[in-house]
């Protein structure tokens, strides 16, 4: 087999993996609870998918430049808190605050590149900042969702359940922007080969700032959609999204290094993880083991990669 053929096979396997893991998790659910295979069943199962999909795409943007964002969970919580307080009381101020957050995100991206510092630590520090701001805004859980937001999130689409429609639309837009547009190719190059890129005269600072800004936009969307679903906010609302989003990107066939990511895969990965959480509700296991089962499912789903990928290759 020639190397080129091997690469082709790898690419196809990479694309298949997220589909495969989603099927593996869906089939037992449909067998255990046939009622879930319906408009309302799927709607319930995927109820919380949209915010997780947004958060995953935010993480994906950052992973594209070989960074890792440990602050996305607290940022999503902050966005939800802004939505639940400022956006209701003084809409313009709320919008301005959200825009400021996105700009701050982009500035952090530029700073990381400019000083060439590790993203993990900067975003770690940033997570404290976001949480602190959220606590200042909303010291105790509460607030209300703007009516238009709840209306949008509970909107019933015809034929196919709303979360599925939303996810497909988001994936399509993300895919076109990152994979098909020339700007997308340029920012992906920042992860693939930064040195070649700066030799070519493209600004690494700009690419990183753009990708972090995109992450900020998706983070805001994630926070707002979560607020629309829960109708109240809390500074700890979405902390688990940080690691969930990383897991979803990896599950979707993304790699930490090399700008190798897949938007479709990441969206499927986050849906798989959402479904896995709902799956636990059907199994009737003791509350003690709920968390443990989440871990076990995560391991099981991720270990499917071994079956599909060439094993034993030394990095």
């Amino acid at each position, binding site marked *: 087999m020639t190397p080129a053929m091997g690469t082709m096979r790898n690419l196809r396997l990479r694309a298949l993996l997220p589909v495969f893991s989603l099927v593996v998790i869906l089939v037992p659910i449909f067998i255990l609870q046939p009622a879930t295979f319906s408009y309302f069943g799927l709607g319930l199962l995927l109820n919380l998918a949209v915010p997780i999909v947004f958060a995953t795409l935010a993480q994906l943007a950052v992973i594209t430049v070989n960074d890792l964002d440990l602050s996305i969970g607290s940022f999503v919580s902050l966005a939800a808190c802004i939505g639940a307080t400022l956006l209701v009381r003084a809409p313009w101020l709320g919008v301005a605050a959200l825009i400021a957050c996105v700009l701050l995100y982009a500035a952090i991206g530029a700073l990381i590149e400019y000083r060439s510092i590790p993203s993990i*630590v900067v975003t770690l520090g940033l997570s404290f900042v976001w949480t602190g701001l959220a606590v200042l805004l909303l010291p105790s859980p509460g607030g209300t969702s703007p009516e238009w937001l709840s209306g949008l999130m509970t909107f019933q689409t015809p034929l196919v359940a709303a979360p599925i429609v939303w996810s497909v639309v988001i994936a399509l837009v993300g895919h076109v922007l990152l994979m098909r547009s020339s700007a997308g190719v340029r920012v992906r190059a920042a992860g693939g080969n930064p040195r070649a890129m700066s030799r070519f005269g493209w600004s690494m600072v700009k690419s990183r700032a753009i990708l972090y800004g995109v992450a900020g936009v998706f983070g805001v969307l994630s926070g707002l959609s979560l607020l629309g679903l829960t109708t109240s906010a809390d500074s700890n609302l979405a902390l688990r999204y940080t690691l969930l989003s990383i897991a979803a990107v990896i599950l979707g066939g993304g790699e930490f290094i090399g700008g190798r990511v897949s938007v479709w895969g990441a969206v499927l990965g986050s849906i798989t993880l959402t479904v896995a959480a709902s799956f636990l509700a059907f199994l009737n296991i003791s509350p003690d083991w709920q968390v443990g089962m989440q871990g076990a499912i995560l391991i099981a789903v991720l270990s499917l990669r071994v079956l599909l990928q060439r094993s034993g290759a030394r990095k």
Partner: protein
Amino acid sequence: MNQPSPLRSAASPAAEPQVTLGGRLRNLRAPWAWSFVGAIGVGMVTASVFGLSIAGNVVLTALVFGVFMVLVGLGQMLVITSGPGNIDLSVPSVIALAGMIGVHVMAAAGIFAGFAAALAAGVAVGLANYLLIRVLRIPPIIATLSSSFIIQSVAITQSRGMNAPPAALEAFANGRLLGIPHLALIALVLSVAIAVLLHLTVFGRGLSAVGQNPRAAWLAGVRVEATRCKVYMLSGAIAALTGVLLAAVSGGATLDMGVEYMLISIAVVVIGGTQVTGGRATVIGVWGASMFLFLTNAVFNALGAGAGVRSIAYGLLIIFVVVAAGGRSAR
């Protein structure tokens, strides 16, 4: 056999000449110095604002509670040094589980059996983490996170009927020798041991080599996978020790006693000057960073700042230190 000099020169390629303070510190090959600059700075602010006696008390408290940051930091440092992507997120859950197991076994079979059981649990978790990473090829950040979920569940099942730790252990954990808390001494001994392990043994030099370039290390005859495996087991063991000591100081193990240490363990390692991409560790930096973070927190507490303000200031400080210390030398 064991020549540190070529490895060290490989770790820090000639930095571009700079006349700034940052450039000088980097040329000194002392990335840990930044954390001490920070710690001493905060200490001086404390002393000037509150007076020397209060500042002294704050430092003494730091030597008890900041020590836990040092301990978790040491384990995390070893893991991070073993190469890009390696990280141990199971630290908080191991702390909880080991605390539980330790206290239970101590009640039944004595203090030393309790320590042994807790450490064994930590090592077992470390081995499991390594196997997930190696056999199932799951990225470390996700593998250790998933395993931490499972450990959390096991800890929940162990949490029923939790007693206080033995009185003798509690007295020891809160005791002092020549004015220095026992816990600080334990951490000091462990730090020296790890520093020796890192810088003077074949294992330690191999670990640095693996962190810098696993392929080159493998070609040079370092047993890459065995080294990584040991590192995760060591990290588990250190987290377990932290768990038992934490349970001893706070009068019993609780499920969430380790939660805050997940992010902090990473923060102290990196602020301390250990290279995030692996291959270069500094034990003394972990101490500097722990003291820095703890003192900062103490100052904000003393000033009566709210949780929100404290968190923001904490985060900005972490970012500020990293920005000031500046870039990785190799990309």
